[in-house]
């Protein structure tokens, strides 16, 4: 599902070059919940952005959900982000002006081809409500993010990530801003998704997440061990 070979990523800061990922390899299978741990600045988020098609400037071979990311045009990479992967961020990254259900609907607005392209707003809303129901927030659908707790916001973000029925879910410190109870709820959701056949790649530094993972990888020196 995720196949990375020899991934190298560098950042240039003035005249100097900083190597963040240095020949990184990774293979995952459907149904795996993989936790990537490592120190701050070790490149965990960078790895996630490469896998998710947010960052196309890298060396090496990356095949995710059957697509070779190096060869995708910007428009194809956007379509890949829209349908093949879902993101969950530490800071939730919901649009504050939109209600929970409208945030969940967002990927539907940018669908090209596939089942969701051409769907009416009403149909998208109905699907988004169903997604919110699945994360236990059906009754909070019309609240804006500012009216929701941290745990609820993260569940809205998870519902949005799952809205397009992706093959890969990418989570960047998903429990970092949550209390113990909310964090446990999110971890349970991830476990359930993995059981349903989704590949879940979680970047974290929290033990409770890595304990729930089927595999834990350490990112250090630009490589996974």
């Amino acid at each position, binding site marked *: 599902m995720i196949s990375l070979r020899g991934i190298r990523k560098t950042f240039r800061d003035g005249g100097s070059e900083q190597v963040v990922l240095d020949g990184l390899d990774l293979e995952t299978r459907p149904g795996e919940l993989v936790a990537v741990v490592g120190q701050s600045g070790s490149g965990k988020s960078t790895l996630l952005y490469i896998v998710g098609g*947010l*960052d196309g400037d890298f060396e090496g071979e990356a095949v995710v959900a059957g697509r070779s990311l190096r060869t995708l045009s910007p428009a194809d990479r*956007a379509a890949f982000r829209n349908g093949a992967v879902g993101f969950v961020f530490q800071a939730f990254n919901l649009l504050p002006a939109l209600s929970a259900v409208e945030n969940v609907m967002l990927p539907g*607005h940018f*669908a090209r081809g596939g089942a969701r392209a051409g769907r009416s*707003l009403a149909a998208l809303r109905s699907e988004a409500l169903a997604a919110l129901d699945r994360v236990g927030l059906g009754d909070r659908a019309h609240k804006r993010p500012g009216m929701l707790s941290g745990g609820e916001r993260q569940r809205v973000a998870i519902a949005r990530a799952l809205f397009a029925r992706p093959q890969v879910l990418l989570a960047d410190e998903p429990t970092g801003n949550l209390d113990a109870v909310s964090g446990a709820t999110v971890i349970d959701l991830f476990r359930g998704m993995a059981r349903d056949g989704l590949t879940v790649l979680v970047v974290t530094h929290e033990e409770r997440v890595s304990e729930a993972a089927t595999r834990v990888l350490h990112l250090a020196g630009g490589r996974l061990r």
Partner: protein
Amino acid sequence: MRWRGLLHLALENLRADWRGAALNAGAACVGAGALAFFVALGLGVGDAARRMFPGEARLVEVVPPAVSLAPMLGGGGLDDAAVSRLARLPGVAAAYRKLTLRVPIAASRPPEGVHLNWPTGFTVQIPAVGVDAGLVAGDLGGRPFADPAPEGPIPVVASTRLLEIYNKTIAPAWNLRRLPPGTALLGLQLPVRIGFSIVPLKTEDRVYDSRLLLAGLSDRVPVYLLAVPLETARRLHREYGKPDQGYTSVALLAARPDDVPSIGAAVRHMGFAVDAGDRAMAERVGTVVAVTTGALAFLALLMCALAALAVAQSLSASVRARVKDIAILQAVGATAGDVRGLVLLEAGLLGAAGGAAGAALSRLAALGADAVAFRILPDFPFRPESFFAFSPWLYLAALAVAVVSALLGALSPAAAAARIDPARSIA
């Protein structure tokens, strides 16, 4: 779906920042409103001016030269041969002869069937000009305009403007009754005395009663004259022994307005003069109105440009404030084109809202201005019902200018938004 989705997002974004949106729409509203208001004012005043000075762009009035020895030498007058030569000039579609009637006509009684408070002993001298029927045929609606049988009423065509001047100036000043609208007067007969003049010693030896029949109203007849059939003028000249002095003038109808300058040059080359009085006045008035309207419209367009700058500045700030939101959209599948389209759509909606409001406000402002004008201005001739001429295309133009201004203002912010790097901005 993408555009519907983007529209949905754009509306939500505008709703979230409704104060900023209202400010931007207000800027577009002022520009579009000013444009519609000033252009409508120019068009309205232009219409009124054209009714006041109905110069016809295709007519060239040929008159004998002011100073010429030719008549003394037996030529140079506007005789039939000259008219024939004029009619053959390139670009001339028709030539209409005019002959000022030198036999006086006077009216001492009101038109039959009309009560005007005609003062006792009041006599009006009626200057007349004989014209070819073709000159006024378009305004006759098929009514006959030819020298009548003996004892029959003489058909006349009056200036369209005469009625307006009579009702607004003469009637109030002399305490006469106003006349109904022009077409209601057609067929009216005025008892007159042929050969009678109110000027001492100008009355002819023979005076007889006749009637004038109003056959039509035309902008091609001068306001101070009545047009009678050319043959009637000739007959009266024969009856009263007036020598033939050639035609007073000849109206040449150009095939196209563009032909007028070359026709004028050819006429002068033939030794005749061109009387540009009425046309020149109409052109001067038209030019003044057009220049004034153009200047005000330019001012309004500057306002639109300022509105575009306001939108540019506001949307730039908005994009800077929404960098993370835009990165989130990219994370869920928005392309650079989607992001650019979203910002442009927001601007377009602002422009459309502002333009629609501006067009509506300009109409309200025009109604207010008309109300004030009607309260403070006297009822002068040709005073229009409204000083503004709004039309659907003007509303559409105001709307389009507002939308285009907003879109132009949004180009740079939209490009900046499309350049946002999601990987850097979302962290």
